[in-house]
């Protein structure tokens, strides 16, 4: 039933001494005491708990680690909602396997911005000797390597990694493995590994197929083959046939703790919408752009052309005229544009350039001065970010940028500068993922993503375990623009700032949501219709998977 392996280390050592025994009895007793300390007397306990120098895990984190090891047998999808400490859960699993000698060589694949954070946390909180990957030799020189997925999938690193055996591979932000045709997915699929942890708060974003692809990495066939998965579980891309059945199929490989069920003491969250009135010139520009988009939308819809630039432009113009300039510039150069549209764009471009004041930026600066504490300003756009930084500095407010494009070291540097020197961190969406900024409790959403999950990701940077103060969120919205509707929809109707958010990902996907919003804005005849359509949309979203399940049962 099992092999017995004999270690002959002691016999060899004795032979080296010519079978002559010597040594002090006191040291012998002490060594036995040390051996007892590292002896695991039970399969089930989490032995690492008494060996964690700088972390006191919460009950749900301990339970999760135990479940991963004892019930899921070390291949699992950790899909807790944002802010419940998935990193701690993964750290516990890594540490437990290491103290039991089941893992020696481990690879932690994370976004570039999180390499140093993961390395530091493993070392400081878990006393795991982890190294941030630096060069080609890191893979073989160190047992526990933290590396960015983007570096790892490039040669020569990829080949080196694929030639090694890993006792454990952890992939953070694992929603980046949702597509099985990407090099990310292929890499993880090809690595030879004993245990595998996939960590993400959003196992499904747009399509149920995504969770199928994640599960395939853990245990192929768990959800059947692609055809049986579709016939058994998929009603349409985003709706499971029987949520309960899908959930139980996932249960053997997935752990998902929810904020509302965790009974954790999260600090209070205060959300406030700040409504602003644009200046006449800004309003004129807004209307000019919106009218242009409306007409282009009809034309593009009838000619089957992409609506994406229009969505982008509509969202940018809500952010700032600066944000819209690059897209306007690009559209001006579009050879398919007719001469009238071209002329109108030229006019809009000139208007955008000559706007004399910036209501939203001024309001932000006033708010920053008023708060007089550390705060993060989130924007979706690089151009807005640059402009905000420039204006903040002009007002003698120390501000630092943070965005996805920064190299790992720079991200870390910016985080430290923000913690110790600057008052404001101006971050773009891409920079928001995974980084922990609990030392700050104020967030200004300069513009809002048209995607509730991404808003939650932003807030999750500060409103998470470890935050000791109440968190204040300010959503800036300009009156009589689409933004006013967006803020109302996201903040009040969907109640995304409560706990429903975790369930949204199953019922609706990000891209579909954005498209539906644009359609609502552009196809509605008047404000009244916009409001009515948004009401319908929010009601649909409020139907959680549980209610959908109950409704089906009644049928």
């Amino acid at each position, binding site marked *: *039933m*099992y*092999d*017995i*392996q*004999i*270690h*002959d*280390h*002691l*016999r060899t*050592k*004795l032979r080296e*001494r010519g*079978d002559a*025994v*010597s*040594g*002090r*009895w*006191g*040291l*012998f*007793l*002490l*060594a*036995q*005491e*040390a*051996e*007892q*300390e*590292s*002896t*695991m*007397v*039970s*399969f089930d306990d989490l032995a*690492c708990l*008494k*060996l*964690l*120098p700088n972390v006191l895990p919460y009950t749900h984190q301990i339970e999760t680690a135990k479940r991963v*090891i004892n019930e899921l*047998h*070390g291949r699992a999808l950790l899909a807790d909602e944002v802010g419940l400490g998935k990193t701690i859960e993964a750290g516990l699993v890594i540490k437990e396997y290491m103290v*039991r*000698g*089941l893992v020696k060589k481990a690879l932690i694949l994370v976004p570039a911005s999180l390499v140093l954070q993961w390395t530091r946390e493993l070392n400081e909180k878990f*006393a795991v000797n982890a190294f941030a990957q630096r060069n080609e030799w890191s893979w073989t020189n160190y047992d526990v390597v933290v590396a960015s997925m983007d570096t790892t999938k490039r040669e020569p690193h990829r080949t080196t990694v694929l030639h090694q055996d890993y006792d454990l591979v952890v992939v953070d932000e694992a929603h980046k493995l949702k597509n099985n045709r990407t090099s990310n997915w292929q890499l993880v*699929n090809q690595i*030879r*590994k*004993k*245990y595998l942890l996939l960590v993400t708060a959003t196992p499904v974003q747009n399509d149920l197929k995504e969770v199928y692809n994640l599960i395939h990495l853990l245990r*192929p*066939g768990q959800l*059947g*083959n692609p055809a*049986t998965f579709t016939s058994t579980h998929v009603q349409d891309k985003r709706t499971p046939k029987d949520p309960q059945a899908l959930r139980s199929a996932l249960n053997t490989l997935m752990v998902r703790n929810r904020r509302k069920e965790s009974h954790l003491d999260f600090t209070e969250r205060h959300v406030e919408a700040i409504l602003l009135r644009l200046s006449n010139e800004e309003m004129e520009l807004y209307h000019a752009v919106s009218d242009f988009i409306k007409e282009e939308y009809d034309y593009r819809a009838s000619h089957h052309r992409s609506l994406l630039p229009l969505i982008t432009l509509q969202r940018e113009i809500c952010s700032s005229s600066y944000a819209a300039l690059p897209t306007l510039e690009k559209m001006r150069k579009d050879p398919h544009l007719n001469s009238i549209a071209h002329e109108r764009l030229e006019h809009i471009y000139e208007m955008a350039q000559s706007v004399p004041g910036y209501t939203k930026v001024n309001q932000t600066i006033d708010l920053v001065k008023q708060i007089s504490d550390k705060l993060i300003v989130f924007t979706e756009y690089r151009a807005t970010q640059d402009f905000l930084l420039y204006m903040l500095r002009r007002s003698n407010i120390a501000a630092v940028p943070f965005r996805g494009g920064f190299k790992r070291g720079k991200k870390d540097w910016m985080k430290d500068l923000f913690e110790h020197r600057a008052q404001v961190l101006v971050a773009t969406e891409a920079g928001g993922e995974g980084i922990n900024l609990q030392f700050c409790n104020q967030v200004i959403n300069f513009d809002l993503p048209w995607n509730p999950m991404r808003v939650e990701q932003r807030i999750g940077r500060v409103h998470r375990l470890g935050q000791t103060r109440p968190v204040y969120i300010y959503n800036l919205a300009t009156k009589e623009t689409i933004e006013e509707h967006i803020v109302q929809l996201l903040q009040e109707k969907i109640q995304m700032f409560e706990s429903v958010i975790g369930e949204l990902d199953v019922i609706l996907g990000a891209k579909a949501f954005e498209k539906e919003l644009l359609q609502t804005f552009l196809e509605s005849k008047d404000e009244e219709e916009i409001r009515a359509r948004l009401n319908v949309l929010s009601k649909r979203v409020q139907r959680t998977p549980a209610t959908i399940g109950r409704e089906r049962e009644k049928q």
Partner: protein
Amino acid sequence: MKDQKLYNFCKQYFTLVNATLHHADDFALSVELPKEVDKELTDRPFYWMWVETLGETPPPNFLYLLFDDLTPSPEWTSVLKDTQKPERVLPGSYRMQKIYQSAKLHGMFAVAYERKADLWPHVLINVKVSYISDRQKDELLSYLFSAHHQTIKKIEWNHWEKNLLYDEPQSGSQIVPLPINYDLVFSKLLSEVTHEIEKRDQSWARESSQRLKKELTELDQYYETMENKEALAAEQQLRKAEITWRMSPRVEVNPYQLALLYLSENT
């Protein structure tokens, strides 16, 4: 609160490895490390390579280890050099792991005597048995071999009079000179350990074997239903190898300590 168990362990360890203990707070140990111990407790191989290549005599290294969260008093710490920061020792901390490792290394072999008139040679061996599948647990076993009777028996470490043994025999003790064939001792030991393992609850291995078999079968069935079977053959083999690697039950037997004991015949 002072971690008395760790404190006692460390104090005893430093005394036994001939480190010099200086005055310190009640909840702290101030230690001057001998070179060899310093090498084992601090991770600086390049420093030692450099020192030894140049044939230099490095200044002695000191540690100021804290076993409580209290702030060390300036009375004791003022004499420390800038580089010697007080250091909190906790069960999982790097320093404690190093101390345990070093203790295991120094305590691998020993000779000890009972305080009796007539002493017979015995061999004590401690063995770690690890039961491993995708999970793991250990068991420590102790065996005593009698050179006189050429027999080996299992003993209960926790109920055994180990504190009645000393590094030196009492004056006037008579030691019966008997040769010891260590190959024979190890051979008898392994046969006893194997026998002992067989007596243990085997359900962990049975369950693991069944799970392994089930997962392999399901995996084959899954790939059988795929249209592009050939293209997926490499992936299938890799997954099978991973499952086998993770779930195959095995037992590791690791004898880790041996002592030559001179005991009275009825011990």
